[in-house]
C-alpha cells in the first residue's frame, strides 16, 4: 500500500516535471491575412465597379466580381504540418473573410508557408463541398466537374472603346477536342512563400497582386481572351502560368 502511494506521488511529481518542461517554450499563435493590390495600389471592395485599372497590354478595366479558392494552407516544419484551412473562398466583395487563424498554437521557430491556388485533382471532387455548392462555385460536369479556382468578372474597353465583358474563370484545364475522350491537366498550383521564422505571436500578410493575372509571363490581351475561357484549354494553361507571380510574402508582425 505504501509503495502504491509512493508511486502515485512519484507519478504526480513526474507529470509536474513534464508540464514545466513544456512551459519553458511558450507556444505562439499565427494568423494569415490576404491583402489585395493592383501593382502597388491597395485594392479593396470599394475599388470594385469603377474603371480604374490598366493591364500591361493597355486594356482599361473594372472589376465587378472576384472570388477565388485557396486550399491546403499550412505551415510545415520538418515533418509536422499545421493547417490554417483545408480550403477557403476569398470574395473581394466581403471584407471579412481574408484572415485565417492557425487552429493550434505552435512552438516558435522556422516554418515553410505553403498553399495551393484552386484544388488539386484529388481534392477537386464534384459536388463534395456544401458551402461551395451553396455559393455556385461548381464547374459543369461537361468540363469535368469539380470547382472553379477563380471567378474574376468585369468589363474592359474594347478596341472600339466600348464596354465589353470579361469572365476570367480559372478551372482545371480540359481539352475537349475529342468529346468522348476529355483530357485534363491539373492547372491548380502550389504557392511556396519560403521559410519564415516566428519568435512570438505573429500575423503573416500575403500580398495578392491582381495585375499579375494579365502580366507575367504572358501579356494578356482582353480583346483576344475575354469570355468563354472555361472550355479553352490553352487559356487555362496561360492563367495558371500567370497566377504563379500573383502571391508574395508581405510583412510579418
Amino acid at each position, binding site marked *: 500500500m505504501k509503495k502504491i502511494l509512493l508511486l502515485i506521488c512519484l507519478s504526480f511529481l513526474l507529470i509536474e516535471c513534464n508540464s514545466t518542461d513544456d512551459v519553458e517554450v511558450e507556444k505562439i499563435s499565427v494568423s494569415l491575412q490576404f491583402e489585395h493590390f493592383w501593382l502597388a495600389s491597395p485594392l479593396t471592395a470599394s475599388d470594385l465597379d469603377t474603371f480604374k485599372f490598366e493591364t500591361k497590354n493597355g486594356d482599361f478595366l473594372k472589376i465587378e466580381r472576384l472570388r477565388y479558392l485557396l486550399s491546403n494552407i499550412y505551415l510545415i516544419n520538418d515533418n509536422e504540418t499545421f493547417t490554417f484551412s483545408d480550403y477557403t473562398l476569398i470574395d473581394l466583395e466581403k471584407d471579412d473573410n481574408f484572415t485565417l487563424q492557425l487552429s493550434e498554437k505552435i512552438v516558435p521557430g522556422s516554418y515553410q508557408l505553403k498553399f495551393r491556388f484552386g484544388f488539386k485533382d484529388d481534392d477537386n471532387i464534384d459536388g463534395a463541398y456544401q458551402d461551395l455548392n451553396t455559393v455556385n462555385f*461548381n464547374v459543369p460536369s461537361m468540363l469535368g466537374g469539380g470547382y472553379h479556382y477563380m471567378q474574376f468578372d468585369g468589363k474592359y474597353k474594347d478596341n472600339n472603346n466600348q464596354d465589353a465583358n470579361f469572365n476570367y474563370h480559372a478551372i482545371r484545364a480540359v481539352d475537349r477536342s475529342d468529346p468522348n475522350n476529355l483530357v485534363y491537366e491539373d492547372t491548380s498550383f502550389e504557392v511556396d512563400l519560403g521559410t519564415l521564422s516566428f519568435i512570438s505571436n505573429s500575423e503573416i500578410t500575403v500580398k495578392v497582386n491582381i495585375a499579375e493575372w494579365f502580366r507575367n509571363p504572358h501579356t494578356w490581351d482582353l480583346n483576344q481572351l475575354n469570355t468563354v475561357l472555361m472550355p479553352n484549354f490553352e487559356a487555362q494553361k496561360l492563367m495558371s502560368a500567370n497566377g504563379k507571380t500573383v502571391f508574395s510574402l508581405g510583412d510579418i508582425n
Partner: protein
Amino acid sequence: MKQAWLYTFSFFLLMNCTSKEEENYTPVVYELKIPQLFKEKLINQIVPANNPLTQEGVALGKKLFFDKILSGDGTQSCASCHNPQKAFTDNLQFSSGIDGKQGIRNAMPLFNLAWNFDEKFAWDGKDFSLENQALEPVLNPIELHSDWKNVAKKLQNHSEYPTLFLQAFGTSNIDSTLVTKALAQFERTLISGNSKFDQYLLGEATLTPEEQNGFNIFMDEARGDCFHCHGSDNNPLWTDNQFHNNGLDASFSDLGLGAVTGDPADNGKFKSPSIRNLKFTAPYMHDGRFVTIEEVINHYSEGLKPSSTIDPLMKKVNQGGVGLSAKDKADLKAFLLTLSDDDFVNNPDFQE
C-alpha cells in the same frame, strides 16, 4: 383575517392561471421535410433561434396566411397574391391590393425561402429576414393596407386566435411580432424539391434527349451559361439568391438594389429568382414583362440591353446575346420545365 384569506385565495387563482398557461404551452417541434438533394448538396437552412418551428406555430402561420383578417377591409389575404396552386404567386403582371392599386413589381413565388442564406427578401433585397418581410404587406397601401394595431385587435377579439397563439407561443397577447413569427414559420415549410429533374438526379426518372440537350445548353458557357447565377445539378436551389442586372433595360425606371443601397453600381440589379416551377409562375421578371418562357429565352439569346451595370456574364451584349438556334431554344425550354414540381403546388399541407 378575511382579507388574508382573500389574498391567499386570489394568489392561488393567479397561480392556477399561470400554470394553466404553462400547461398549454407545449408546442411540438416541427421537423422540416428536407429533400435528399438539399441535405447532400447544401449547407443547413436558416431558422432563427428565437423562432423555432413548431407544429402549432406552423399551423397558426398557415391559418393567418390564408386569412383575410389581415387586410384593412377583410377582402384579401397573403394568398390572394401568393396562391399555392401557382407556386405561391399569381399570374398577373402586377397584383392589386385591397384598394385596387397596383405596384410596379411582380408578386414573387414563395418556396425554399429558408435557404436564402443572406436573408434578403423582395426583388431588391430590401427586407431582411422573413419575420421582418411579413410586417410589410399588412401595412403596404398597395397590398393589405391595414395597420398592425387594428389587426392585433381583430385577432385578439377573434373566437379562436387567442387560444392558437397561446398554444404556439405561450401567450395570448397578440402583436405584430407573434403574427409575423407564425407567418415566417409557415413560409419556411414551403419546400419545393421534387421535380422531374430532381427525380432524374436521384435516378428515378429519365430525361428526353431534348431535355438533356437543354440542360447542356444551360450549363454551357458558350451557349446558355445560365448556371453561374441559376444553380446547377450541384445547387438544387436553382438560384444564387444574389443581385444582378441581366440586361433587361439600358436605363432604369426601377433602380432595384440601387435604391436600397444607394450605390449607383447596384442600379438595375434584382435578385436572381429560382427557375424552379416556371410552369406555374408566369409572367416573368421583376416587372412581369415576359409572358412566356420563350420570351425569356429570346431575351437572353438576342434581347440584351447594354448598361454600365449589366452583369459581365451576359455575353455579346453589343449583338444582343449569343444567339441560340431555334432547336437550342426549344430544348432549353424543355429542360427548364423539368424543374417544375407538381407535388409542391398540390401539397395538401399548403392548401387553404
